[in-house]
């Protein structure tokens, strides 16, 4: 049987802000058979979304399809008129966006947006379309399928919206569905449900799919074939099993290697009864003014106690909204804890940063998730790193400059970078600067708040390696906050699980999966995608526990 999709020598150009023309897709070719699911995998900027969108004859603003052909069901999307393309979109090729929360019009009811596809193309009468929509809601195992469409997008959860957007894609009975990182923004426990729903529907209706993702484990669950992309070129194409077991291209091998981070550094065993470096006792933190009972209006962290032993790392893991970042802000004093005690080397630390001494501030540094927003784009790197040097150590002039050079060496960046500004650096480089700024204070504890989650897999793995190396050399302690269990396992000796503002369990790394965990911990750990293609079908979580626990 002929291929459903044939892409030949596709070239897409973009105009940069400076007006320069660059080629972002450099002659890509691949096929998709009817009913086959092909994954496009690669780091950000590899062109995977651009290629996927070209299947609908669409190029984002500033981009232009410059050559080659994209034949979908016998029609070359590149050569169609805009009107002809519009007729194909939604009926033959449909799109499931990365962030359904942003892709739903906030001013329209969900059902109206779902059946709009049928309305635009005159596919079926409205009441029939509504019935079909409800059928799809049921097939995608959405709660209250009969009434959920009456809500506005902000009234349903992220995981539900993602499935609703799949319903929106499927209602026109397309022969090809494009999934653009549909689970990247979701928590792992939610991701499982969404992936399952997608897989079941796609298998049922024999629809071909393009699954864009940077997560090899997720792709392994759903794709028949994988196309590995880098820099707008195809690196390797192969069946899922082949790519996972016998990757031939070095880049693919690096991707796979990044997926199996090693254990934490085998540091010297600390004295067993050493005084903890950092101790939290029943810390409560939240937003809004204090109420009469001494609690904040909205309590985010509900009485968390933790200890951090010298030379050890503590991981705090939990899903979005569990209060882990708020906890970090409370420790750093940015958001003063409402009650509870924070002890630094046995001595109580004032809860607000402004009440702490400079010495106390120096010892606890925080590294934020997004280096993009944490680094002042108008300052050069030397100034950014020079500030903490002047503030904490009074270093100026040549001494400060020498120290900046040393810091750049420590985070493995060329010294020449110090004259650049953050926007000129890559994401990984910015995160290294972010880390170097914390190191400039010469701290004892570094609070790492999701520092790898905005980075590509390979880059994140390099940052993790750097953290371990710095620990060996400088004897730091990390409080490592993340939603990603493999990353936490790679860095931390102790792992605390947070849920709804409470620490529900703490274990050492060796105990992960080895002991009888609490229900939520079990669910969280089981939900981390594995490279094994049969993982999704094999896990058995009680759906009710999942629904109740994950609250979405």
């Amino acid at each position, binding site marked *: 049987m002929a291929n459903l999709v044939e892409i030949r020598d596709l070239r897409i150009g973009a105009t940069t802000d400076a007006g320069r023309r660059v080629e972002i897709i450099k002659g890509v070719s691949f096929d998709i058979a009817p009913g086959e699911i092909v994954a496009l995998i690669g780091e950000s900027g590899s062109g995977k979304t651009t290629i996927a969108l070209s299947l609908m004859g669409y190029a984002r603003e500033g981009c232009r399809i410059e050559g080659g052909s994209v034949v979908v069901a016998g029609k070359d999307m590149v050569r169609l008129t805009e009107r002809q393309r519009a007729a194909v*979109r939604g009926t033959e090729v449909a*799109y499931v966006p990365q962030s359904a929360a942003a892709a739903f*019009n*906030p001013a329209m009811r969900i059902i109206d947006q779902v059946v709009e596809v049928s309305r*635009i193309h005159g596919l079926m009468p409205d009441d029939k379309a509504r019935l079909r929509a409800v059928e799809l809601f049921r097939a995608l195992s959405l709660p209250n399928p009969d009434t959920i469409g009456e809500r*506005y997008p*902000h009234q349903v959860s992220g995981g539900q919206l993602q499935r609703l957007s799949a319903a929106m894609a499927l209602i026109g009975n397309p022969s090809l569905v494009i999934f653009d990182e549909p689970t990247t923004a979701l928590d792992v426990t939610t991701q499982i449900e969404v992936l399952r729903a997608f897989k079941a529907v796609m298998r049922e209706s024999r629809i071909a799919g393009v699954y864009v993702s940077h997560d090899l484990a997720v792709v392994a669950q759903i794709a028949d074939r994988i196309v590995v992309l880098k820099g707008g070129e195809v690196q390797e194409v192969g069946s899922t099993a082949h790519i996972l077991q016998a990757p031939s291209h070095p880049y693919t091998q690096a991707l796979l290697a990044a997926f199996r981070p090693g254990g934490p550094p085998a540091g010297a065993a600390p004295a067993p009864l050493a005084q903890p470096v950092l101790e939290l006792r029943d810390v409560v933190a939240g937003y809004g003014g204090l109420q009469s009972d001494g609690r904040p209006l909205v309590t985010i962290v509900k009485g968390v106690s933790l200890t951090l032993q010298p030379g050890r790392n503590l991981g705090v893991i939990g899903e979005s909204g569990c209060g882990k970042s708020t906890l970090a802000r409370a420790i750093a004093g940015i958001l003063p804890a409402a009650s509870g005690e924070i002890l630094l080397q046995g001595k109580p630390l004032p809860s607000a940063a402004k009440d702490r001494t400079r010495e106390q501030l120096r010892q606890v540094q925080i590294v934020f998730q997004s280096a993009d927003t944490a680094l002042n784009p108008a300052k050069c790197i030397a100034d950014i790193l020079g500030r903490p040097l002047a503030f904490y150590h009074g270093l100026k002039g040549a001494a400060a400059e020498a120290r900046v050079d040393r810091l750049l060496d420590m985070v493995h960046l060329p010294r020449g970078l110090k004259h650049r500004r953050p926007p000129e650096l890559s994401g990984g480089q910015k995160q290294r600067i972010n880390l170097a700024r914390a190191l400039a204070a010469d701290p004892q504890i570094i609070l790492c708040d999701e520092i790898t989650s905005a980075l590509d897999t390979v880059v994140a793995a390099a940052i993790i390696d750097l953290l371990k190396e710095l620990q060996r050399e400088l004897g730091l302690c990390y409080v490592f906050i993340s939603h990603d269990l493999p990353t936490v396992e790679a860095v931390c000796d102790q792992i605390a699980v947070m849920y709804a503002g409470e620490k529900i369990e703490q274990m050492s790394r060796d105990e992960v999966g080895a002991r009888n965990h*609490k229900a939520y911990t079990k669910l969280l750990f089981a939900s981390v995608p594995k490279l094994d293609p049969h993982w999704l079908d094999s896990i058995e979580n009680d759906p009710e*526990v999942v629904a*109740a626990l994950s609250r979405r």
Partner: protein
Amino acid sequence: MNEGAVRRSLSPSLDDRSQTGNAMNRFVWSLVGGRLLVALFTLVVVSFTVFCATAILPGDVAEVLLGQAATPEAVAGLRAAMHLDEPGFLRFVRWLAGLGSGDLGVSYANKMPVTQLIGPRLLNSLKLAGVTALASVPIALSLGICAAILRGSLFDRLLTFGVIAVISVPEFMVATSAVLIFAVHLRWLPALSVAREATSFLDLLRIFAMPVITLAFVISAQMIRMTRAAMIETLNTPYVEMARLKGASPARIVLRHALPNAVGPIINAVALSLSYLLGGVIIVETIFNYPGIAKLMVDAVSTRDLPLIQSCAMVFCVVYLLLITIADVVAILSNPRLR
């Protein structure tokens, strides 16, 4: 935490949402109510400011009214009759109570009740403002929307250039040039716009044409710019891209997906521009000799007619507040997150 307990404690969260609808409605109305209260409070503050500002105007009213030949006794008598000898706060309260009951006082200049003076003038001004709004709002919004859709095109650049040109030219330039061209040289339109002379609809059009065009120029510029900016912002959102990827036509994308989400900023720009039509039209009313309320106020200042000045200022404030409050309420109601 065992599994059963978790299930019991957390499962109701899904069903809660149907009950939140009513609470949401109440919340919206409390927001709207709050907005109205703020408007009322602003009005009181403004009236106080107006009263104070007119009270510190130089010169004693009684002396001015009686002329230089007046005896001190006559001045004192008049001051007592006008309650000018009372403390300022008492006079303010007296004045505010009058305003509340619709009594704006009596003009010093010609002893007529201020309401009678303002009434027909306000009607004239509202007529001019209404015609200008009817003509300029649809045109300005369409131009702004088109510019946003065709952003970067020749049309967009020409329009942006034109708008900036119009903003930078002062309105008296526009008005006097219009008079020079259409009334003096071409003799198409009358130079003065006295509404009473209109005998037919065509006459009315001719009378209104120049002031309306001048005003439309001035207020459209801001509306076009704001509409364009608000539309570009919504056109760049993922949900507009999603609509395009569903195969929606350009008209549907704009009217169903982009425009409803840009209503808030647009309506505010419109309200701000329209509020200018009552208080800010003094130059236009003077040049075309149009008997509106702004001209009345200028005349009142020159005759030191305090009750009239105060009343005109209050009328401007009320209209301004009314428009801004309407815009805010519409913006609140058009936000589906609050619905």
